[in-house]
């Protein structure tokens, strides 16, 4: 048994420690918001936070995450109210939506470390997240908008 802390809750999973976190989240914990896209850390669709840092769950074995704090898209906010999610709605970022969990998790991690990111910061933090629908222009604008929302008094 492996014990994981996902979105603040303890999960006891009967799984091979070599299993990538992605499949444990999706198939064992039933948290399907984190997506499979490539299996090789090439597309970012599986991005989650590990102790607040963005990681690609498809190449992160369970053995590496036991005892650490895992946050998935389901845990970013309970109601879609994280500033990144609000900005995403406001600017109509999503299209098919499949990559957006990963995009949002990468963007949230970026803003946590750089509250006012430059275009270069955005390129560096987001270049690992592919979007086949091509929502990049709006992602860039929404990250800047989220930065404003984080600054504004709640």
């Amino acid at each position, binding site marked *: 048994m492996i014990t994981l802390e996902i979105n603040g809750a303890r999960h006891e999973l009967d799984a091979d420690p070599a299993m990538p976190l992605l499949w444990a989240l999706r198939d064992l914990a039933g948290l399907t918001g984190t997506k499979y896209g490539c299996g090789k850390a090439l597309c970012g669709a599986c991005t989650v936070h590990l102790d607040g840092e963005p990681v690609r769950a498809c190449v992160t074995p369970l053995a590496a995450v036991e005892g650490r704090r895992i946050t998935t898209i389901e845990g970013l906010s309970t109601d879609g109210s994280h500033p990144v999610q609000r900005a995403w709605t*406001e600017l109509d970022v999503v299209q098919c939506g499949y990559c957006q969990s990963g995009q949002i998790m990468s963007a949230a991690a970026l803003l946590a470390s750089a509250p006012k990111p430059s275009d270069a910061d955005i390129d560096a933090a987001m270049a690992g997240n592919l979007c086949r629908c091509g929502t990049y222009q709006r992602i860039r604008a929404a990250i800047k908008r989220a930065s404003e929302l984080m600054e504004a008094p709640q």
Partner: protein
Amino acid sequence: MTAHTSGEDSARTSRRMFLVGGGVVATGLLVPWYFAGRGAPSAGIAATRGPGLSANAFVHVAPDDTVTVWLAKSEMGQGVYTGLTQILGEELDVDPRRIKVEFAPVDAAFNHPHVPMQFTGGSMSTNSSYEQLRKAGATARAMLVAAAARRWSLAAASLETTDGQVVGGGQRAKYGDLAIDASELAPPRDVTLKDPAKFRYIGRSLRRLDSPQKITGRAQFGIDVIRPDMAHAAIARPPMFGGAVRSVDDRAARAVAGVLDVRQIAAGVAVLATNTWSARQGRDALEIEWAPGAEPDFSLATLRTRYQALLREPGAIATNTGDAAAALGNGARSLDVEYELPYLAHACMEPLNCVAQVTEHSCEIWTGTQMQTADRDAAAALLGFKPEQVSIHTTFLGGGFGRRGNPRADFVLEAVELAKAAGRPVKVTWTREDDMRGGWYRPFGLSRVRAAVDAAGLPIAWLHTIAAQPVLRGTQFEGFIPPGAPDPTVAEGAADMPYAIANLRVEVHEGASPVPVQWWRSVGHSHTGFAVNGALDELAQLGGRDPLELRRALLAGKPRHLAVLNAAARRARWGEAQEPGHHLGIALQESFGSIVAQVAEVSVERGAVRVHRITCAIDCGFAVNPGGVIAQMESAVVFGLSAALYGEIGIEHGGAVQSNFDDYRLLRISEMPFVDTILVASDGPMGGAGEPGVPPVAPAVCNAIFAATGKRIRRLPITSSL
């Protein structure tokens, strides 16, 4: 609209049918069929809806005031979840933001108005649903008003509606309170549609209604479906097209923890397990000897050689105006050039997948599909069932681009076959490598253009020969190819190019290859848009004319095309000084009922291309959701740019070379140009938005590269040519 369409409508419809990015059924019987918005839903649908008003298949008003719309179209990013709900909400007079949206089951009630089939493609979702959904909403509204009139003993004409309520004579009732009464009335034969001047939702850029689900991870895609007792499957597939299993040793696979079973099916060898990862571990442990296909050494080089020979032979005639061959010899200057486009994978971010459950008498399918009718019929045929024994639960699609409307229902049938064999629900999830190497690509194709300009530099002859695999031929859609004519998906965009060239001849060689092909966002236009716009720029150079000015001259009689061309050129400041090192290229393509012109602003440094800006103008007629059209242009630019810069599926030893996003690159945010979109207003018929933005991208960028470097790119992708 009635069951009969006017001659003009029919011509337009049958033309559109050839422009399928998602397909039409080939029966040879093109029965114009229209659900007039007043027929009752089929018994199967009605049974699922509970009490309340089901005025027609598309809308239900429940006594608790819940209003539900059933979408016949699949949401794959293009925005129908929002746009179609806007249309219904407008006529029903209910704010679309409080309408519950469901994906329709497979049922004839949800067929395309003019095609006996339920599918999403051809950039037709909005324009084909527009009148249908307006009538559906207006019919339900009329019945609710009639119920109120009867209850209050007032004339229906004296009553009004306001956002989900009927009001008049000092009375007021919510739709929900009237739903049961209204359900006892006969739907009216005719309904009056709203005066467009009074639209509150149609024509407005409503925000996407699916955002709340998609920003929280709650949106359910096919890959997210979980059924009780479901097994997860991974399939070992032949490494070459046409290959088959010769022998398999599954002992090691069965020993993998979590593996439940190993089954050989038509698609290959399937490993069933308690989770996806175990299924894949099991698959990797299989020892399989493969029997090769008919051409084990087939490569792209082989096909290129075959096609190059074909381009020297006369082909089937797609169009022939004047005498292009004779006029070629009369020009002041002429050219003879070849354009080449590679096979391309759709590469949806959500790899293909399907969940199926088969019992003795029923089959249930959960997947993101663009072609419910074909999937259902294929599953029924495989199982020996009647079509009504098969049900399909359409989920959100993590991208489609044509791939999820497969003429063979490939990704659906394998799951059905496996679920029947396993006797339990099964989810098949393709790996990225399966998806990339699985075929059904945009066809590889060659275009040879021989053309001439007169002394004034105006084109007088264009003889265009295309060799590419047909998309419709050999499928159930073959009946839509006119007898004796070439498959229209090969020459579309060339045979009907908008430029006034007196002597135009387009010939087609329908190629053959072991590699299966399919519609890929913008279909034949993705090929012809490149060849036509590229060769036209070469003619401008040959005749000493500016590429924009030449296009203007050739579009002189076409005000809509001119307006689009000029809008893009003006916004991009064509002919004015650009930033140092930046150069412009222009292209225009009419496709799927819309006209798009794009200007690319590009710099090239030490062989590296940087696209800084794409200025994009579109005339799609009336836009139901203008913001949605703008989003589709941004999307199309990225899709087209990934293909132009990097897209290439090579073929060696009978199989695909590329496997994942490391060798099949897609554009990343750090490479994203700014896309500046202009909606050009017109009173033209409503066109499409999903596909028309793709074809101009590659030629606009390559024409800009020529302006920057003097080098013509005639073979895509650019990174392999520069």
